[in-house]
């Protein structure tokens, strides 16, 4: 799932200082699961902002509301009547959610309350580990389920490089060499031939916005 962290209060205050009626909009999806932007975090931020902004200006009105997801307009119904009452929206969703809210409510300034960090897994409560950079060219089949794009500091498709040192990466002794780990797991699984195959360099596609259409829907959206 998408993982994020809340921005510092000072930064959020900076966005909001000139607005009087502020709607803090929580997301019940990934942002909620990673403890960054769900209803509980909306309630906490509301109190913090009231303390920070209202003491200097009693006209400030800060409300919190959480919808199930901000990445799908089907969940926006309740917002339609609510949003006109506010000067701006502070979204606690990931970057995708913030952008959809901004697209949907074009007349209202929409600000992010989170930094979207990664696609990751839940290691412990409140501790998440990045696992995927959504490169669009998944090579996990050949790398023993370890992503070199995410784990290798150089994002190498053919490794390890000369900087590997006793299983550690040259950039830090605290960082395990991804390609060393890939080698070990492939060896354990008796399929070292996979590491010997030369992979072509990635055709990086994420410099432009990507749209995903599943095959059965090609006809519907592209007429193909």
């Amino acid at each position, binding site marked *: 799932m998408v993982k994020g962290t809340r921005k510092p209060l000072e930064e959020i205050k900076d966005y909001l200082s000139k607005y009087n009626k502020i709607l803090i909009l929580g997301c*019940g999806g990934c942002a*909620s*699961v*990673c*403890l960054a932007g*769900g*209803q*509980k975090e909306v309630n906490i931020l509301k109190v913090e902002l009231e303390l920070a902004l209202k003491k200097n200006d009693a006209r400030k009105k800060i409300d919190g509301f*959480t*919808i*199930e*997801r901000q990445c*799908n307009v*089907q*969940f926006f*119904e*309740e917002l339609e009547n609510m949003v006109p009452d506010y000067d701006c929206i502070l979204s606690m969703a990931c970057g995708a959610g913030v952008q959809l809210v901004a697209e949907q409510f074009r007349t209202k300034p929409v600000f992010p309350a989170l930094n979207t960090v990664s696609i990751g897994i839940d290691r412990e*409560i*409140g501790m998440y580990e990045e696992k995927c950079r959504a490169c669009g060219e998944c090579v996990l089949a050949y790398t023993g389920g370890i992503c070199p794009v995410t784990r290798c500091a150089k994002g190498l498709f053919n490794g390890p490089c000369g900087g590997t040192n006793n299983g550690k990466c040259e950039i830090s002794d605290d960082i395990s060499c991804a390609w060393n780990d890939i080698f070990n797991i492939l060896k354990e699984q008796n399929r070292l031939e996979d590491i010997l195959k030369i992979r072509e360099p990635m055709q990086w596609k994420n410099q432009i916005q990507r749209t995903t259409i599943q095959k059965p829907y090609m006809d519907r959206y592209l007429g193909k």
Partner: protein
Amino acid sequence: MTANNTGTVDIKKIKQMLDKHKVKMKLSLKVCAHCTLCAESCLMYTSHGKEPEYMPSHKFINSIGKLYKKRGVVDIKTLEEIKETVWEKCVLCMRCYCPLGIDIPEMIILARSICRSQNIFPTYDK
């Protein structure tokens, strides 16, 4: 998932929310023929041994149907039960299909929203 609200229920607020969606809610509950055709489109139903409580129709009848039948006069315990139904048994993937045109996800969203209005929602840190 644990309780956030250990206090009281704002019945007036729930009634307001129900009234706002009364026509669609009433029609949806009336139209449901209990045909169970929605079940096959539910990934939770198919991946949980086809237990009836995972059927989309069961979930919407036991959440919004319950709230409607009780006209919003519910206690925390009932809302906690509804929370269990609409969050634990539904991931809101929006895939459920009703041959009679009932918008089941919309009903589940409404039930979740009513729970949220009473500070009842899932938490992921306990």
